[in-house]
């Protein structure tokens, strides 16, 4: 139901970075690049966010934070890694405390390369994320339509298409 892609709200988290990409993300939201013309709002609240944007790598200390932010976001959601650090750990990769890129902790959908990533490519990443956001929402609606009237999942907290598929897979594995 409905177009959700016209209103992507961003949650930006800056991990273990040099702050270069952090500044570029802010630049994307300033008048020159004006991400708000696509409906992008930079919100600080995971409960209201649709796209999680991570800059910088993941270390021992911020891993639980990133994971919690991801878990707190309602579905459908998309995660974008911005900058080489977030994609792979970048220049900090070999440090003793690093776990690696953002995908070491949460599933990443879109990788935006660059050190620092330029605002143009960040915008491009956001646009790709927006398409994916719409696709996930549609998939969910499609699933709901096809499985209308069927008995709901066992766990009342589980209610997206992906979870239902996962549940069935788990059940199948248990049966086998």
């Amino acid at each position, binding site marked *: *139901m*409905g*177009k*959700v892609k*016209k*209103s992507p*709200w961003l949650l930006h988290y800056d991990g273990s970075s040099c702050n270069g990409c952090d500044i570029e993300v802010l630049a994307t*939201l300033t*008048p020159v690049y*004006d991400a*708000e*013309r*696509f*409906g992008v*709002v*930079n*919100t*600080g*609240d995971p*409960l*209201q966010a*649709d796209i999680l944007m991570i800059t910088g790598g993941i270390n021992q200390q911020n891993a639980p934070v990133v994971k919690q932010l991801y878990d*707190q976001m*309602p*579905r*459908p959601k998309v995660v974008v890694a911005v900058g080489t650090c977030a994609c792979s750990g970048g220049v900090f990769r070999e440090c003793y405390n690093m776990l690696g890129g953002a995908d070491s902790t949460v599933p990443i959908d879109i990788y935006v390369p660059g050190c620092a990533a330029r605002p143009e490519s960040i915008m491009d990443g956001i646009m790709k994320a927006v398409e994916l956001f719409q696709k996930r*929402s549609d998939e969910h609606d499609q699933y709901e339509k096809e499985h209308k009237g069927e008995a709901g999942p066992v766990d009342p907290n589980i*209610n*997206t298409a992906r979870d239902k598929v996962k549940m069935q897979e788990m059940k199948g594995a248990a049966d086998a």
Partner: protein
Amino acid sequence: MNHTIFYAIGAVLYIVGAPFLGCLMDGAERKLSARMQGRIGPPLLQPWYDFVKLLNKQVVTVDRAQFFILTSYLVLMVMSGAMFFSGNDLLMTFFVLSTTGTFLYFAAIVPSSPYSSMAASRELIQEVCYEPAVLLLSVGFYLATGTFNARAVFSQNTSLVVFLPGFLASYLFAMIIKLRISPFDVSTSHHAHQELVQGVTTEMGARNLALFKLAEWYEMVFLYGVVAVFILNSSLVSVLAAILVDLVIFFCFVLIDNTNARVKWENMLGLSWAVTGLCSGVNLLILMMIR
């Protein structure tokens, strides 16, 4: 009889039309803000897109009571607006309006999150700031027209702004606080960040936030409607004048929003009471003397 139908239509128009009008006003505000900052800005219908998106998101419930309280908040807001546009008792209308503020406080405090609770107490402070001006306003209407009945107040021969300029000034000031326009957006802000994450809406996501937005649209139309009452009189030209005044005020509010930084709540409290006391108080005294 004729008038009763007229006012009933007013209420129905408000209940059906206010969300659309409020949504457009919200969009216009964002667009105008962006233009003032030299940006292109979001499309005019952006608030509507946001609303549809919010209804499509997974509902993560922090506290089940919140949905119920927010629904009550919305219903009371619609009720106070409908009472106003259907020409009911003004005093009663403003009392119902005050109650809505309390419901928002409860909606923010039930999830017992530190940010949201703190914002909730700030919301109460906001209410303390704008309430005197709003309540005194009904006294002003009474002194100028001799009745609390909104229908009588609406159909005056001379515009009420002639008798109540001070009340209008303090009402406009209260409106800035009520609409949470910067510098008085201490409980929650329309803009990206706040020192309290998102203020009272921190723990509202998806459906709940959509309800909150809807109530805001109703509120906006209602508050601008009250401004129109100052201008309206029995002539038809006054309708045009009222719309024009509303537009000018709308523009000024966006300008104020874009040129002021948030103040501390102590300053807001002091300032709002000073303005209310000065403008409404002096106006009240003069009215009492000449009547």
